[in-house]
């Protein structure tokens, strides 16, 4: 594909990467052309980030090879032992998460581990570093003082610093993993013009984004990954948006969710004026009131920072400063601690599975019974046979695929781990389950299992609060939808009235500027 001076600069061939418990990439090919924007799309967990980490030398592939082509077209196989290696060969990566040292200044961050030094790399030449950093930042259209501490910058500016870090190496290939996710609309425009500029200088850009409209706008080539496999690779101009979505999710999105209305009974959970003051004034949760009925799935949608997670944690007693009445049937819970609230029948399935849901040091069975172990005892003696029975039942019920209940939880795939977290919550014999992003980062099969579990629980009369940032998920799973925006409830929809457009509007009510999806 030699055209307009563009040529192949890097080719990944047959890349497979196996992690404990999951295959992140399966025989994936990927080509990068110079002077082009090579877009890479796929759902969460499709393997995009892993592929980029392999190309940038952060991870090594289990099998497969990465070829780097010189300007004359001669291929050379790469095996990096570090990002530093990759950077030397002209490959830079801008990570999705910020990797900055917030107590160092901008220039120090930009030149981290590639400091400009004098006297044989002993003395850091701060003045030159500041000067160079200022130049790069100017090129990025940002007038940031290089001696500012990173912690004093806005999030969007920090993202720019992250980009500047790779720019000083003048890379031939620049990988950008969701670079716009924390930028304002104006900052996105600046970034695009920078990308355009780089492209004209023959830099190969690899652009990863969830925002397909951005890819339609600036992308040249598109590669689609799904469930660790390559699905399609072609020119952006040749493909319709609907096709991209179809290929990303691998199914008709409207048909996927089992969504159907549930028969609801009496009121189970009632929350009145839940308030959580924000550090430094204002509210993270601003007098939120709602209720959940038996057999009802109550969806809560909101953008980042809307207070979704904080709401659920406040309900379970994890936020000390939270105030407001919480009634579960006839029992008032807001003066009880987490343990008592769980005993009363409230339980949380947390957003970050590994950080808040699992004990990676323990086996599957011990994870499953951790919340309910006190009820499996006589006096203070754990009844092993009873525990084993419960564990076997719940593994069956949640269709957890596990070699043995005694195996370490860390050997399981994300989806199975998530089922363990749900199983753990279920064993506390709850009345109301609070689920925070229950399908985040798990594969499609496990996703549909989780939806079925939610559906079955609702049919069995449990009350379910489902928090999600995926609109279609909320729309199809919920009997009723609440929308949070900056800590306030801004709308409530019945199943019949709800549509994505209305919900999206309501979620942006409290935002002064328009927010990208």
């Amino acid at each position: 594909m030699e055209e307009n001076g563009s040529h192949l600069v890097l080719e990944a061939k047959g890349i497979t990467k196996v992690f404990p418990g999951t295959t992140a990439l399966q025989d994936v090919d990927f080509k990068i052309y110079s002077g082009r924007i090579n877009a890479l799309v796929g759902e969460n967990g499709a393997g995009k980030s892993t592929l980029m980490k392999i190309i940038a030398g952060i991870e090594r592939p289990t099998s497969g090879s990465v070829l780097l082509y010189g300007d004359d077209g001669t291929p050379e196989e790469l095996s990096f032992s570090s990002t530093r290696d990759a950077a030397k060969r002209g490959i830079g990566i801008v990570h999705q998460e910020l990797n900055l040292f917030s107590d160092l200044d901008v220039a120090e961050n930009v030149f981290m581990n590639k400091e400009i030094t004098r006297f044989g790399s002993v003395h850091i030449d701060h003045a030159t570093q500041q000067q160079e950093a200022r130049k790069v930042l100017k090129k990025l259209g940002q007038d940031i003082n290089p001696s500012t501490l990173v912690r004093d910058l806005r999030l969007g500016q920090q993202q720019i610093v992250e980009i500047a870090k790779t720019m000083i190496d003048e890379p031939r290939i620049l990988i950008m993993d969701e670079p716009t996710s924390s930028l304002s609309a104006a900052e996105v425009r600046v970034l695009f013009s920078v990308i355009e500029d780089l492209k004209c200088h023959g830099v190969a850009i690899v652009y990863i984004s969830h925002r397909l409209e951005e890819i339609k706008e600036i992308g040249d080539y598109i590669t689609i990954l799904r469930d660790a496999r390559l699905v399609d690779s072609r020119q952006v101009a040749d493909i319709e948006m609907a096709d991209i979505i179809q290929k990303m999710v691998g199914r008709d999105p409207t048909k996927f969710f089992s969504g159907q209305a549930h028969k609801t009974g009496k009121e189970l959970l009632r929350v009145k004026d839940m308030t959580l003051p924000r550090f430094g004034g204002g509210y993270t949760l601003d007098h939120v009131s709602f209720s959940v009925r038996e057999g009802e799935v109550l969806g809560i949608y909101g953008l980042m920072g809307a207070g979704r997670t904080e709401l659920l944690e406040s309900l379970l007693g994890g936020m000390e400063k939270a105030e407001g009445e919480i009634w579960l049937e006839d029992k008032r819970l807001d003066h009880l601690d987490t343990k008592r609230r769980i005993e009363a029948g409230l339980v949380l399935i947390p957003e970050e599975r590994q950080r808040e849901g699992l004990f990676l040091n323990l086996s599957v069975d011990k994870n499953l019974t951790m919340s309910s172990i006190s009820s499996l005892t006589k006096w203070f003696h754990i009844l092993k046979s009873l525990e084993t029975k419960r564990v076997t039942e719940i593994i069956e019920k949640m269709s957890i695929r596990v070699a043995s209940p005694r195996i370490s939880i860390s050997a399981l795939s994300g989806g199975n781990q998530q089922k363990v977290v749900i199983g753990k919550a279920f064993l506390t014999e709850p009345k109301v389950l609070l689920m925070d992003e229950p399908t985040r980062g798990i594969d499609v099969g496990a996703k549909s299992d989780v939806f079925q579990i939610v559906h079955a629980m609702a049919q069995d009369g449990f009350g379910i609060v489902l928090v999600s940032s995926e609109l279609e998920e909320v729309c199809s799973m919920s009997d009723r939808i609440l929308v949070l925006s900056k800590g306030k409830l801004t709308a409530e929809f019945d199943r019949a009235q709800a549509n994505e457009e209305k919900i999206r509007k309501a979620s942006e009510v409290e935002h002064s500027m328009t927010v990208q999806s």
Partner: protein
Amino acid sequence: MAEKTEKKSGNGLSVGMILLKLRTLIALLAVFIVFSIMAPNFMTVGNLIAMAKHSAIWAILAMGMTYVIVGGGIDLSVGSVAGLCGMLAGGLIIEGLRLPMFGVVIYFHTPMIILIILVIGVILGSINGLLVTKLGVAPFIATMGLMYMARGFAMLRSGGKTFPNLVGDPALGTTGFPILGAGTFLSIPLVIWIAIFIALLAAYVSTKTPFGRHVYAVGGNEDAAKISGIRVNRVKMATYMFSGFTAALTGLVLTSQLVASHPGTGDTYELTAIAAVVLGGTSLSGGRGSVAGSIVGALILGVLNDGLVMVGVSSFWQRAIKGMVIILAVVIDQYQLRKQNEAALKQQTVSDAARAAAAS
């Protein structure tokens, strides 16, 4: 405990893995064999009992330490707390409790003194617990603070002097204290019985009770523990209190064995206890380990200590060798952990594949 249960289910485990898991026991056996060859009177009943006696003291401390470390903390104060408790016990026996405002001196009976000292140990442990849970001080710093304070107060109690000859006065009912250190039951020293009793209790609680589970949970993932409804602060508090208890007990035993309270008693014992715990396969980052392992660890250190003396190795070399053994143990531990994870992964992958094959 945790390791034992896995062994039972370890249908896919190789001989190598089993040997790796039993490595602390194998190491103990190895030092036994080496010393019994090199030192002719090593395998005598008298010597074995003497070694068991030394190890028992470390084992008692190590059990408290195991709870704290598995719960995600560390307790550097145990040696000093043992010293302070010994001084307080000696003081109560020799001088009694002086209450100047009432102009009286109270003498307690010996069992009462022992009880008071144990309670003081628990209280000192709870100070560590309070600092760590309520005030958010890092365990290392909090317990290091108490380490210096307790040692300081131990010195202050007597102005740095020793309380000698703690035989007590029959008229005051303070006799009998030396029995704790020198007494025997079925011709086995009381110290060993005490260690066995506490070991059984500690092992039982850690494997068979919800509290034991919770200690592992808190050490493994505090955030998840909170969300699971575990009262994290109470669990941590309890581990430090237990550690304080074992420290006080150690102080009593050491003092009783010497029949004198010396303010320097138990110096650097916290490090020996930590070494025993680590040798037993407990992870310093919390959430992983066992009481049984720590006991074996204490035994290895005890045997190594006495064996090296009997073989005539210089005390300088003794230290160097102990250090090497500890480092080696941790290196092997890391290796075993990696292998174990790989084995679990393999087992799961095989099972997934079998399931997929069955489904198609």
